[in-house]
């Protein structure tokens, strides 16, 4: 049970961490000062959540710290979904990735607030306000880009076409998620999916965008099968801990 809980915390933390990392790559390079600040802010919130999850995970595991968990695992041991490791191709992809994740993350946290695990419930309760703001931000930009100019509409649609086939992974239940759900610790992905589908349908239609009729992709980030991007993300993320092991910073 402890192992499963640990694994579950990695899933929650890794999603926030890898998405936060992608957003942090944009810091100082946004299309306007306001969006730059907002995206950095979301990244900050996500890393705050990562710290909570990993501090708890370190406690469970013993002889680990939030940093050893964040920076010293091997590639196959990261548990994030493929959606969050997608690159910052353009602002439409950044917004599309954020929106699809937020539309999943908010109902996830709503359920986790009622988790039988007090720590998870507390972290979710703290994160939910942030997540609500993230979803408001990303939804408003999906609408702005979808219903803006012809160019922005096309770019936003293209981003959704690329990203949408990756969302099915969010709802494909792993053994760990099943176990946690049955213990009343983890979320029921089917319930999240209802709320996710509803939200995506509403926002995309307001944005004059279409849900692409493309098959979902077979991705398994949650069991550690990542894209070729992941190694490069980790090379940066882990650089200091790998180059200068066992030091205080």
């Amino acid at each position, binding site marked *: 049970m402890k192992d499963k809980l640990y694994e579950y915390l990695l899933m929650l933390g890794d999603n926030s961490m890898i998405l936060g990392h992608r957003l*942090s790559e944009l810091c100082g390079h946004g299309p306007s000062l306001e969006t730059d*600040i907002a995206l950095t802010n979301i990244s900050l919130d996500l890393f705050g959540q990562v*710290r909570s999850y990993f501090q708890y995970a370190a406690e469970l595991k013993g002889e680990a710290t939030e940093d050893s968990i*964040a920076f010293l695992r091997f590639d196959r041991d990261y548990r994030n979904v493929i959606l969050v490791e997608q690159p910052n191709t353009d602002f439409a992809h950044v917004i599309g990735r954020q929106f699809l994740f937020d539309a999943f993350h908010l109902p996830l946290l709503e359920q986790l607030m009622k988790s039988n695990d007090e720590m998870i419930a507390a972290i979710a309760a703290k994160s939910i306000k942030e997540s609500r703001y993230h979803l408001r931000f990303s939804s408003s930009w999906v609408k*702005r880009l979808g219903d803006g100019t012809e160019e922005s509409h096309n*770019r936003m649609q293209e981003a959704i076409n690329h990203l949408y086939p990756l969302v099915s992974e969010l709802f494909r239940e792993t053994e760990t998620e099943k176990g946690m759900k049955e213990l009343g610790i983890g979320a029921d992905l089917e319930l999240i999916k209802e709320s996710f589908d509803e939200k995506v349908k509403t926002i995309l239609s307001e944005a004059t965008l279409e849900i692409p009729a493309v098959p979902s992709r077979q991705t398994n980030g949650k069991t550690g099968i990542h894209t070729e991007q992941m190694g490069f993300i980790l090379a940066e993320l882990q650089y200091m801990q790998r180059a200068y092991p066992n*030091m205080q*910073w």
Partner: protein
Amino acid sequence: MKIEDLEKKFQDRIDAGEKIEPKDWMPEKYRKTHIRQISQHAHSEIVGMLPEGNWVTRTPTLRRKVGLLAKVQDEAGHGLYLYSAAETLGISRDEMFRQLHTGKAKYSSIFNYPTMTWADIGTIGWLVDGAAIINQVMLTRTSFGPYARAMVRICKEESFHQRQGFEMILTLCNGTAIQKEMAQDALNRWWWPSLMMFGPRDEESPNTEQSVKWKIKRKTNDELRQQFIDITVEQAKVAGLTIPDPDLKWNEERGHHDFGAIDWSEFWRVVKGNGPLNKERLKARNDAWDNGEWVRDAAMAHSEKQAQKEELKKAV
């Protein structure tokens, strides 16, 4: 009223410690000087995000990640307040950006140096934010209201950045030999450029007298530089680091540290655009702007459509 009378009344208000507000009458030169200074200050905040942003993806710990992201975000916020303060004088943000992107407007030269190691991040907080505070504290009492008020808020955050940076350096100095060496190397590279942040020597700084009258300046470049050196020397001692200046020594008579000659040819080279990374910094700003154009256009188009819908609703 004659222009001379207006100018006298204006100066009397400043002398009496009153704040000048955007709608008040002001001499053209006052307006122009403030637009130039405030926008350059704003540009420095924005370009300053780049050298530190260079390390956000590689921080050694999660705690440092959060600290650095928050710091860089603060700098963006400083840029925002300052652009807003300049806008009250009748220049648009787009126009200020245009001046930055074409190289017409300047920004602090210190940001044209590279951040090569993690210790550079602590050193920037310690020295660069430290020097910025010394320059800026006097601006909290400057005569132009919006600038003074922006500075109050900014100075609080800068002093937090300075403490955070120095704490990072202390951590390195209390760490392994490799870490301490990293900190010393960073100090060696950033020390002289930090001293140059206070600008040319007083003999070569023509604007000082006018600036003092308008309370943009209360102390001269050399006075501020001396103040920075005296404070920083003590901090370096605490950290156990050596300031890379063999001529640095306490002068009992002056009550200040004497220091070696600054290489002003380097200063002018960097100011004129030929520093280590001037081209790269400008390119990064230009790229962000150019790549963001379609996004800004979309936001504009969307808000126009929304406004039209509102109009229609009202008409019905």
